[in-house]
């Protein structure tokens, strides 16, 4: 049974359509990440699920119950916000207990739940403190605790790590993953614009753009088989290389672009290829160089424009045909600017899109 299911959801602010006919099914215990750039409607969708925004049309089910017009407290959800949103005048304990007191949970039950949550989140020594006396990471732990004590089926996270510095963010990311493994029956819906968070945490990622979901799949599929140009461009840092050219159809399809001809026979086409304008996308780490490149189905010589050492690896910028082409090599490399190098790739690891529709072929 689906834990959260959203059916044909519409949301308009005045004449602006923020969410358009959106369908989404989330399984019990799943970690789903809503990923997109700002203004794509991902936080709006989360607020709709939480009941903090009234939908214009459509329905929302949580644990099989139609909650479209229920109050947030009756939906069986807990929510964690970007700014932590802790009540400043209450102690940590008061913050954790607030929702339970509102729900008239007995005192000793409140104590038991607070004790359990604070053990899991390592915030026991902080219970008597005010939020102002806590660090950012501690505050966010308390905010997660506030959702935990409510004993809910669904956790909603609205960019919970965005206010933390990079190091703390990485630490809490792992803790969140651990927490999800501990609470394996709890569904988590997580909004972020950070693709690393999305790729590391998610069971499935929903990539959103302009109020609709572009692709809903596991991180591996999203990364390796993006359904359209937008997803291919959005995911991956450094971003994917895009080569514009023409493709022929038939039994032995060829992709021709400014830098040469590629036999794309090994490519896993969704439908038999037809001739037309196309875009070929190659991830920088799928490009081989030097000896390894010679074994690749497609190889060519390029000259190096820029070398960017990034510690663990190095990004090399070249020009292929008329287009910028990046590839990634190890951290220790002797490639220098102006040098001629042989590079190659296997068309099976690439993504080919139709030029007009921008959809994956």
């Amino acid at each position: 049974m689906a834990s959260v299911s959203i059916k044909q959801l519409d949301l308009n602010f005045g004449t602006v359509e923020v969410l358009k006919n959106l369908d989404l099914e989330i399984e019990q215990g799943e970690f789903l990440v809503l990923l997109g750039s700002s203004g794509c409607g991902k936080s709006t969708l989360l607020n709709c699920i939480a009941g903090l925004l009234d939908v214009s049309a459509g329905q929302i089910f949580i644990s099989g119950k139609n909650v479209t017009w229920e109050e947030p407290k009756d939906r069986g959800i807990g929510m964690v916000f970007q700014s932590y949103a802790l009540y400043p005048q209450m102690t940590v304990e008061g913050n954790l207990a607030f929702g339970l007191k509102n729900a008239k949970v007995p005192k000793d039950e409140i104590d038991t739940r607070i004790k359990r949550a604070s053990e899991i989140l390592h915030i026991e020594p902080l219970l008597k403190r005010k939020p102002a006396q806590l660090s950012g990471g501690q505050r966010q732990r308390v905010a997660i605790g506030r959702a935990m004590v409510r004993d809910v089926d669904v956790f909603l996270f609205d960019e919970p790590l965005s206010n933390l510095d990079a190091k703390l963010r990485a630490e809490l990311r792992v803790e969140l993953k651990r927490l999800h493994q501990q609470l394996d029956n709890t569904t988590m819906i997580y909004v972020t614009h950070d693709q690393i968070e999305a790729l590391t945490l998610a069971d499935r990622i929903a990539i959103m753009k302009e109020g609709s979901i572009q692709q809903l799949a596991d991180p591996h599929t999203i990364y390796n088989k993006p359904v359209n140009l937008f997803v291919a461009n959005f995911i991956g840092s450094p971003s994917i290389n895009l080569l514009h050219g023409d493709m022929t159809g038939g039994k032995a399809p060829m992709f021709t672009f400014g830098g040469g001809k590629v036999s794309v026979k090994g490519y896993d086409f969704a439908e038999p290829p037809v001739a037309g304008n196309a875009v070929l996308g190659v991830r920088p780490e799928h490009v081989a160089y030097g000896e390894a490149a010679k074994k690749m189905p497609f190889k060519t010589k390029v000259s190096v424009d820029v070398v960017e050492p990034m510690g663990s690896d190095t990004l090399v910028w070249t020009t292929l045909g008329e287009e910028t082409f990046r590839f990634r090599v190890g951290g220790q490399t002797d490639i220098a600017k102006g040098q001629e190098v042989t590079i190659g790739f296997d068309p099976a690891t690439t993504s080919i899109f139709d030029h007009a529709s921008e959809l994956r072929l």
Partner: protein
Amino acid sequence: MSGRNIMIYGTLFVVSIYYLLPLYVMVITSLKGMPEIRLGNVFALPVEITFEPWVKAWSSACTGLNCDGLSRGFLNSVRILVPSVLISILIASVNGYALANWRFKGADLFFTILIFGAFIPYQVMIYPIVIILRELGLYTKLGGLVMVHTIFGMPILTLLFRNYFTSIPEELFKAARVDGAGFWGIYFKIMLPMSLPIFVVAIILQVTGIWNDFLFGVIYTKPDNYPMTVQLNNIVNSVQGVKEYNVNMAATILTGLVPLIVYFISGKLFVRGIAAGAVKG
């Protein structure tokens, strides 16, 4: 002491004298007897300090028909002030909270109308209000004046509270809703404890405004119910007999004492409130 400091302190000194001199004249005149005042030496310290004018101003100066001093007016003013301040702030804070956090249908229109009310000149409304109060049976009664003060305070106070509540992060409000707090639960348990500074501002605004009011007091009440300011005017402007400058001065200081005390007490609270709010929570 450098030249710059001399400039700064010199200027401050001159400005202070400018502001404090009238107060000085008032205080010393109120402590002099009439014979001393007749000498005409306004700035001279009293030769013989007497509190007689203060006693007279408070308990036996004549204001029109009554000769029981300002004490009656003081009580009237308190009876007008306390309910007006409490009711207007209570209603306005809930108004502001609802407008800022619960985006109900027609909220913008309601707010626009309310703010528009702040720009209509008082004079236009004086007579219609007389009729309304008369129809309600509240004309010349203290209750009527309380109502007038409450209504006239509403636009600016609502604006004040709405803007303050808008500045409180929306996520806090959302978190409280997810935690199951309702309209009043969020107001009393979340918003109210965070809004001490704005309540102090509202209290200062209302106490001084209502205490210092003269126009509404003289129009909507009768001599028995006159607030202190109207009585003060009657004492100072009474044309019979000798002008008792010392009694007038004492009466004036007495009337101004309440706003002064409010400034001194709440001014400190105000600063503390703002400082407490500045710490990020």
